[in-house]
């Protein structure tokens, strides 16, 4: 078991294993997406208050969850890279940033599109929306900082510190709807006692959440493979890989 992890941490083995995993993740992502869309757009009934417009939720909420999840993965991988100097952790950290930024962007824009018919405005500077916007800037900051530093390993250390400091924003986003008065509705799924969302709507929501997780896994491996090749371009195994 330990040896397996040790090998996995070697860029060369990682490249091979990731390459074999990507098609499976793609297929699983496709299946969950089709199922999620079917239950979300066709099976689930209209909402008694919001009519059909609530169907934006099946994109918006999983995207918002992912924006937080990817950030935590990025910061954790960054910390592992700082502490143990693991090359692969550094690769995972920087490869996560653009994917997290994409999810954050999607959550913000679909939220805005949902807000227009429901709240009557595209945007309000309230706690939830503002802290999520800051999250987008954190992602963009990580990407910009990485590109600004020439040496990959120094750049990785820099973005790890930025990412770890930014973690303070994560609980702020999560609890913002409880700590401050806001237009944004409170959580309906993660309430400890009982979720106040009907099963017919919860099922597609969870299906889409799994689909987005699989998508993240897939694109993370794709990006990481590129980053690994780029960093190891002068090694023997990359040369052999290309001349095959």
């Amino acid at each position, binding site marked *: 078991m330990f040896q397996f992890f040790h090998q996995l941490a070697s860029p060369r083995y990682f490249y091979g294993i990731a390459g074999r995993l990507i098609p499976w993740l793609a297929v699983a992502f496709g299946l969950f997406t089709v199922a999620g869309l079917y239950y979300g757009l066709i099976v689930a009934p*209209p909402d008694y208050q919001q*009519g*059909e417009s609530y169907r934006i939720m099946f*994109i918006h909420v999983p995207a918002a969850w992912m924006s937080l999840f990817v950030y935590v993965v990025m910061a954790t991988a960054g910390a592992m890279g700082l502490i143990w100097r693991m090359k692969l952790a550094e690769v995972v950290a920087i490869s996560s940033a653009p994917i997290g930024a994409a999810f954050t*962007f999607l959550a913000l824009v679909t939220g805005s*599109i949902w807000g227009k018919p429901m709240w009557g405005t595209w945007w309000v500077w309230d706690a939830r929306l503002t802290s999520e916007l800051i999250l987008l800037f954190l992602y963009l900051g990580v990407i910009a900082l990485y590109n600004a530093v020439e040496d990959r390993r120094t750049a990785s250390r820099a973005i790890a510190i930025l990412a770890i400091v930014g973690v303070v924003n994560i609980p702020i986003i999560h609890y913002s709807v409880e700590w401050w008065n806001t237009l944004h509705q409170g959580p309906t799924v993660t309430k400890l006692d009982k979720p106040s969302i009907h099963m017919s709507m919860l099922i597609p929501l969870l299906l889409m959440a799994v689909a987005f997780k699989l*998508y993240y896994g897939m*694109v993370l491996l794709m990006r990481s493979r590129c980053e690994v090749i780029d960093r190891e*371009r002068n090694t023997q195994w990359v040369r052999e890989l290309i001349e095959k």
Partner: protein
Amino acid sequence: MSSLNEFLHMGGYAFYVWTSYGLAVVVLLVTAITPLRQRKKLLAGIARNIRRARRTT
């Protein structure tokens, strides 16, 4: 046919719902295609470097 129209109409929220879903498709597609293209470019670039190195030695 009428049920399809009804489905596309989304109870009057067609613009908001389909813009959101369309945007999700675009964002997810672009995010997935970027590393595919990057990988091709990277491999081609490294192969070029190897060939150049060989010629000079």
